């Protein structure tokens, strides 16, 4: 009787400890955060769409974000470069995760560092873009290109996304330091790198939609 109860108790404990998602709680919590953040960004984008449709006119992003090279205006060149950088960083992040699972410390740190550098380059481009537009008089309440809401949504959408990239760089720096110091070896799991990767790819995912909805539409 006593052993039967003990067995039942153990079985119950094993059952309740098993994740219904067959994933660690760390990973599930990152997914919870990502879904919440996706809904936040989604709401911002829907509100932007609503505003833009109800105004009827808008600035021409192809012209606003053009770069002048050799006297020629190339539409959206800076944004194309920024997209290229962020997609590249997603690739290096994927390689960092792949190397983390092979427990290749050196290459994991190398690819994490490359990802961070690309992220910082992206933020640098954004600083250039912001200072360029601000120098031309763009404010959240006024801009020389179109209705005032254009400036408001520009700063809100790109600012919110840029902060995510910057936080991601700090996050990756912490993870890279833990990999380099062997903290993850002592823990016996490199899953932290994969979870950090989830966040980084999510930031790239958000850019796909900001790039499409704000810059190309």
């Amino acid at each position: 009787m006593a052993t039967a109860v003990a067995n039942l108790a153990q079985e119950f404990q094993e059952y309740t400890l098993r994740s219904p998602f067959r994933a660690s709680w760390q990973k599930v919590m990152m997914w919870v955060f990502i879904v919440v953040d996706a809904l936040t960004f989604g709401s911002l984008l829907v509100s932007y769409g609503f505003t833009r449709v109800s105004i009827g006119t808008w600035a021409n992003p192809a012209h606003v974000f053009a770069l002048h090279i050799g006297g020629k205006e190339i539409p959206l060149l800076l944004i194309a470069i920024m997209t290229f950088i962020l997609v590249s960083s997603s690739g290096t992040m994927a390689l960092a995760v792949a190397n983390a699972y092979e427990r290749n410390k050196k290459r994991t740190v190398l690819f994490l560092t490359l990802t961070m550098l690309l992220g910082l380059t992206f933020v640098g481009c954004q600083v250039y873009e912001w200072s360029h537009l601000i120098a031309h008089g763009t404010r959240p309440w006024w801009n020389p290109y179109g209705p005032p809401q254009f400036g408001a949504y520009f700063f809100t959408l790109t600012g919110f996304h840029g902060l995510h990239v910057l936080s991601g760089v700090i996050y990756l720096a912490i993870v890279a330091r833990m990999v380099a110091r062997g903290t993850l070896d002592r823990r016996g799991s490199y899953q932290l790198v994969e979870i950090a990767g989830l966040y980084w790819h999510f930031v790239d995912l958000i850019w796909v939609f900001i790039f499409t909805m704000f810059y190309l539409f």
Partner: protein
Amino acid sequence: MAEGTHVPIRKYLVVWLWLFILSALAYFIDVVHVPQPWKPILLVVVALMKAGMIMAVFMHLGYERLSLIYAVVAPLLFLVVMTIAFLPEGGAILGSHALVAP
């Protein structure tokens, strides 16, 4: 529990290449001025393809249990509902302005 989801590196590289191709395609759809009803449709299709690839392969969602996939994707459908609910409303407001304007 296995330590993580192992995706072959080749697959990462293929998706990476596709993301570059689709990003370039989206840029060219804008630059060559595709006629109006088609431009937004094409852009949304390209964006959803990119999003699907990033989620399925880079974020390993295609390798997770179905329950996790449902838990992630189902709440996002709310955004489709919001889009359908609010964008026509914006159009209605624009229409009402047109009635008032001289």
